[in-house]
């Protein structure tokens, strides 16, 4: 059979690398937990995502061997992320611009809050008055005076 891309020998990494990467992952988990105890406002999400991305890349590169394998696999892996990016970006052309012409079309999205039937999130109650959404009855009241 033609095998024009790589050898089929399994690539074995020294145990120390696995342990090393493993401890970095555990350390970053601790960082995530610690970071959660501060309120960075808008940056909360960004920081959490940043740490998570670093962790995911480490797993992909070392545990999944993408760093050492044929670069084609890396390309395939990244293409999934690219397509996810395409999906999110183009969808935002819709969701962020829905009210451009008719205000009413933006309603549902603009008023959306993180839904929480158990009322654990304090913010949901704070938003209740300002957005005229009743979190108890799951009913939207469109405020026509605004």
């Amino acid at each position, binding site marked *: *059979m*033609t*095998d024009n*891309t790589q050898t089929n020998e399994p690539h074995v990494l020294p145990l120390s690398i696995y342990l090393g990467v493993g401890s970095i992952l555990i350390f970053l988990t601790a960082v995530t937990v610690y970071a959660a105890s501060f309120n960075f406002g808008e940056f909360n999400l960004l920081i959490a995502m940043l740490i998570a991305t670093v962790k995911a890349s480490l797993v992909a590169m070392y545990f999944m061997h993408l760093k050492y394998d044929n670069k084609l696999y890396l390309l395939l892996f990244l*293409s*999934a992320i690219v*397509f996810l990016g*395409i*999906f999110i970006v*183009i*969808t935002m*052309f*819709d*969701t*962020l*611009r*829905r*009210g*451009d*012409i008719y205000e009413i*079309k933006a*309603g*549902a*999205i603009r*008023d*959306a*809050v*993180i*839904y929480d*039937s158990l009322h654990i999130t304090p913010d949901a109650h704070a938003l209740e008055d300002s957005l005229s959404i009743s979190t108890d009855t*799951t*009913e*939207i009241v469109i405020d026509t005076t605004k």
Partner: protein
Amino acid sequence: MNKMPETHYLNATKGIKSWLTTVDHKRIGILYLFSIMFFFFIGGMFAILLRLELLTPSELYIDSDTYNQFFTLHGAIMIFLFIIPAIPAILGNFVLPIMIGAKDVAFPRLNLASWYIYMFGSMFAVFSLVSGGVDTGWTFYTPYSTTTSTSVISMTLGAFILGFSSIFTGLNFIVTVHKLRSPGMTWFKMPLFAWGMYATALIQVLATPILGITLLLLIIERTVGIGIFDPAMGGDPVLYQHFFWFYSHPAVYIMILPGMAIISELITAHSHKKIFGYTAIAYSSLGIAFASFIVWGHHMFTSGQSELAAMIFSFLTFFVAIPSGIKVFNWIATLYKGSIAWTTPMLYTLAFLFLFSIGGLTGIFLGALSVDIHLHDTYFIVAHFHYVMVGGTVIAFLGGLHHWWPKMWGRMYNETQAKIACGLIFVGFNMTFFTQFIMGAKGMPRRYHLYDDVYRPFHAFSTYGSWVMAIGFFLMAYYLFRSLYVGKPAGDNPWGALTHEWSITSPPPEHNFESIPITEHGPYDYDKVVAKSTFTEK
């Protein structure tokens, strides 16, 4: 007169168990053939029943709720159980490894697993069918799908599971094409069928998980009440459509690319002419695979998405037509000055060119934002997608089935009957669906049980057409089954074609090749190599 080979993959081992545990790609192809055709039959029965009901403007024999269930089951079965798996799982499994000179696919067990998963997923579909049906349409749009009392969950779960079967097949083909090509079979010496299967596999692997997640989110919203699509819970119903079409537009290319792959083979083999524009056809498959991911919003022009998004999607949609156009022109150029043999596969090929062009061009109409506002959700849409899916994919599939049938079974079907059936299907199809373009443009909405009297002549004609088509299909079933018993042995190469599968016996030996085949000539070198046909009617 030809003789059948003594041993081949069909009689190498015997008994039900040898079939249910087989890892031979050819046998798995046959397992798929029978199971998928069974569901094609069920889906087809629903179609005939729907058309019968639409014969008259008022209620004929089913009420509106039943009507809604019938079109949902028809659509869901045809899409998820028939057209998506059909060509890759049946013909791809059977032919692809032999074409590239391999003894099997890269992961034979995974291949068998994909069939079991297909059967498992289809059980869910059957279950939803008997446990109250589904009435959402095959698209499962929210908010209706999260509120209706019908068996939405089991149906979507079925589609979710079927997705895995699709991914397994795709993954298998990608690795097979990369790793198992025989010596001399470089990328650009591969038959175009292999290119098409490869491009399809890429979309299957990249896009199918999205459907899985979408349906899972739907199920979660329905069962646990987490708001994703329901505005009352902070969700966005239009978001569902984004999710759904981000899978389903690429999925329409999961359906058509394999059809195009077949046509590229048939058109050269039955006109004995080197393919025109090999590289253009190969690359356009990859072009289609990519472009298909950035146009999904053309299904949502009237959904309430932002005007900006609608404009962007309309603009991008025109790009997907380019690779399809490239292919059609190259196929026509291939026919030019070829020695066209009027075989059944060739008839299907010509039918494809004709019908797919109509389907594709009406897609351009629909891609134009302003025109679509008028045509959306009318019978024009119904006609458009039937022209591409039936006129394109199903016709190509039937062409491929007739082309490789003698290879599968070693026997030839009755060519005269086959041509008659092909004619009936072609005429019946146009009767059924061309009328729908007209009534759609006149405003007849789709998915309606009762309709205004002015549309009556169109609907009636369309229903008559569906009967003509049905007769064609039954005739086909008859002569194909009959050929298994009384068909004349076809010999190794009944069409005088040059790809690898025609150099081995029909039916092929269990392990395809005795020694690793060396690729000496290109798959379409009809200008340099002459392969004699091994079959004559008399």
